[in-house]
């Protein structure tokens, strides 16, 4: 799973039937400190995350389909959690 931050949402009317009534979020990937890495992805939201929130994103097809109760949905990325905080133990350099 990867850490990210919700940057926005996508609205769409013409889409694959699997995506009907599914909320799509634009998530910018971050490092554990919360700094953007410059990369992003579009993920289905199942937890009700909003813009600005730090989130946990599952980026794997079989798990994503399991979360969305589908056997053949064309989906790989799902927002599966909202992050409260990340504790890091820094090693002395």
């Amino acid at each position: 799973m990867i850490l990210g931050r919700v940057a926005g949402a996508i609205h769409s009317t013409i889409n694959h039937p699997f995506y009907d009534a599914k909320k799509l979020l634009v998530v910018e990937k971050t490092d554990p400190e919360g700094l953007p890495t410059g990369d992003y992805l579009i993920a289905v939201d199942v937890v009700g995350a909003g813009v600005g929130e730090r989130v946990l994103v599952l980026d794997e097809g079989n798990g994503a389909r399991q979360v969305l109760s589908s056997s053949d949905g064309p989906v790989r990325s799902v927002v599966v959690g909202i992050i409260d905080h990340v504790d890091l133990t820094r090693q002395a350099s």
Partner: protein
Amino acid sequence: MLLGRVVGAMVPCVICEGLEGTPMLVVQPLDMAGSPTGRTLVAADSTRMAGPGELVYYEGGREAALALDPAFVPVDHAIVGIVDELHLPEREAAP
């Protein structure tokens, strides 16, 4: 999934079984701000409604083939939706 801009169409004269009639579009991947990034790719269009100039989102890898019918086809990128509105509130607020 990632954002892309349809920049053209690819018309095959011979194609693998299961892909007959599937629109194949040339897609320029975009970053979050909508700027082109990386090289263009060819994606099957599962919506069958995307055309040149349109902002789309596409899936890559094994999941791309699942967007098509039949699903057991040799495809690694598929357009799954056309973007009506890309709402990035923090970027809109910036000058």
